[in-house]
């Protein structure tokens, strides 16, 4: 078998149905041109209601203060921080798919990278809501930036919380740029297909006059490659820095060196679960089974299985280190996680993150769409509880038993969390409605007829 034959065969599995360049353009561009399905309006109205809930709750929070949350002393960090870490983590799969798999020339990524990147951007936006409102006095939020001010004070660059500002801020900006650069050729496709004047103008403006010339492609491809190369260490640094918020402190259960890799693995794990949930819904609604095939879903399941094992290994290592360090506070905290007042959360975490993904050892199950849909949701529940366990168990019962307390969220904690789903899905549905959700030009590049011989 020659090389080109093998290549052609793998492509056949990735993109199904006898596709031509035109049929690819048509199948994907049509989604944003045809009449919007009724289901979209239904979904959008639900999402938008939750977005309004978010805005209302934030308004009340700013009016009243963070006292409306269930925070107490010692548990000064609650749902807001859990949700922040959870949402940032979800974003990580998008960058992994768009950048790391690109560098490894995993061509199967082309079917899922566009909306995985969109998911990253929207998830990071949801994440950024939380630290912004958690500061209490949101009107002086600009203090986190090194802006000369009348007090002639500067931010404390030795604080992990400030590193977070730079890490997550950079992550958001670079992800947005990466996504936009990838969109330019496809926006030009929509421009050239546009029938109405307004579509021509809007897509025309955002496609920046792209004309597919090789002199443009030359710089474009290098730019894309460099952005992938920059995003790869960036994504690893972001969740490492997020983990520093915990690891650099001296709270038992937080002050461990395993946190950065453990957080990054968990982030990719939960992010893939979210990509899976969204991909299954999108391919069903828009009949994209030819582009997002069972093969793509199976590969994502394998990545989830691998990262689940990493996360499980990290849970075990935490226990081992707690025992091996001989530190009684550390040992107590870990035992307290599994057997203490929040043990229900701990075991939800173990079941969802370690037990459930083991079903993906079986080929039948990892190719079964309903099974993986349920599993992907359970994994995200489990990953939320992982952050709950880390934040709450360590804070509520730390060194002095006299200061222990039990943390319970209030209505407003739940409202803001649910509200961020409104923000996320509102943006995601707008994206599905107006932008090409699959990277059309990249798909064309991996079709068998795109191969040239020299």
């Amino acid at each position, binding site marked *: 078998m020659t090389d080109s034959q093998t290549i052609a065969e793998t492509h056949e599995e990735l993109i199904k149905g006898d596709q031509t*360049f*035109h049929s690819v*353009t048509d199948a994907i561009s049509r989604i944003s041109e045809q009449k919007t399905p009724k289901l979209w309006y239904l979904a959008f109205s639900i999402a938008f209601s939750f977005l309004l809930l978010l805005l209302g709750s934030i308004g009340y929070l700013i009016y009243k203060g963070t006292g409306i949350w269930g925070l107490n002393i010692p548990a000064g960090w609650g749902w807001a921080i859990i949700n922040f870490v959870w949402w940032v983590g979800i974003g990580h799969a998008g960058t992994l798919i768009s950048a790391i798999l690109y560098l490894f020339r995993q061509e199967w990524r082309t079917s899922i990278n566009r909306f995985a990147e969109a998911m990253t951007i929207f998830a990071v936006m949801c994440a950024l809501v939380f630290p912004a409102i958690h500061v209490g006095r949101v009107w002086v939020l600009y203090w986190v930036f*090194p802006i000369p001010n009348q007090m*002639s*004070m*500067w931010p*404390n*660059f*030795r604080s*992990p919380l*400030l*590193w977070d500002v*730079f*890490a997550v*801020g*950079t992550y958001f*900006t*670079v992800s947005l*740029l990466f996504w*936009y*650069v990838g969109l330019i*050729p496809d926006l030009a*496709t929509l421009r*050239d*297909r546009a029938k109405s004047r307004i579509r021509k103008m809007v897509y*025309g*403006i955002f496609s*920046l*006059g*792209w*004309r*597919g*010339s*090789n*002199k*443009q*492609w*030359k*710089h*474009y491809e*290098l*730019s894309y490659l*460099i*952005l992938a190369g*920059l*995003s790869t*260490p*960036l994504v690893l*640094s972001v969740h490492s*820095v997020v983990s*520093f918020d915990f690891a650099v402190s001296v709270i038992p259960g937080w002050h461990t060196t395993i946190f950065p890799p453990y957080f990054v693995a968990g982030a990719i794990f939960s992010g893939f679960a979210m990509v899976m949930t969204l991909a299954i819904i999108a391919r069903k609604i828009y009949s994209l089974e030819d582009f997002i095939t069972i093969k793509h879903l199976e590969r994502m399941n394998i990545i989830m299985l691998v990262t689940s094992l990493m996360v499980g290994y990290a849970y075990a290592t935490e226990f081992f280190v707690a025992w091996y360090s001989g530190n009684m506070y550390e040992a107590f905290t870990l035992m307290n996680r599994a057997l203490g007042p929040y043990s229900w959360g701990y075991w939800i975490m173990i079941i969802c993150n370690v037990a459930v993904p083991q079903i993906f050892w079986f080929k039948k199950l990892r190719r079964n769409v309903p099974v993986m849909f349920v599993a992907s949701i359970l994994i995200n529940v489990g990953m939320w509880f992982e952050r709950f366990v880390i934040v709450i168990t360590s804070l509520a019962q730390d060194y002095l038993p006299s200061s222990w307390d039990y943390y319970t969220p209030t209505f407003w904690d739940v409202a803001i969390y649910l509200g961020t789903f409104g923000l996320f899905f509102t943006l995601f549905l707008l994206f599905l409605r107006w932008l090409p959700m699959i990277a059309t*030009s990249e798909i*064309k*590049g991996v079709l068998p*007829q*795109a*191969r*040239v011989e*020299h």
Partner: protein
Amino acid sequence: MNSQSIKIHGMIAEFEGPQQLLHAAEQVRDNGFIRFDCHSPFPIHGMDEAMGEKRSPLGWIVGIMGLLGGGGALLLQWWTSAVDYPLVISGKPFFSLPAFIPVTFELTILLAAFGAVFGMFALNKMPQWFHPLFFSDRFAKVTDDGFFVSIEAEDPQFDPEKNRQFLESIGATYTEVLEEKIEEEPAEKSGH
């Protein structure tokens, strides 16, 4: 009465597919054309060599921007923490390098990414919302399934008729001259 003049900007020729476009590019290059370009819905591997294109200098821009980002971040943290408003925090030195690494790293990446995106825009002269190629309706196919060679009127060898024959001889399925009709308004009307 309106007087019309026609300005020719160049010409385009359509080819069947990526393979044909690649060969056409080699032929056009070998025939000594300088101001030409190839257009396709996706990047075609080997097209740079076929056209005789030099490597993109974008890497240099990114490298310089990255250094500026990292150096700038270190300077900023040193000046704010050790010079302008020194504060003792957890007994660390004013210039505590290990604690300054995360911000330095992030700003290196941020500025390098700006270099990669805006440098690419600059090299591609984007945004350029209008280009004579858009005079051709046929050219809209380029973002769908069209493969084109374009030759600019500035090319020393440009000659619509001769070029058309040449392009057809190397496999062009369609050719078009990019004409712009310039309407010159009569002098008495322009007073309004």
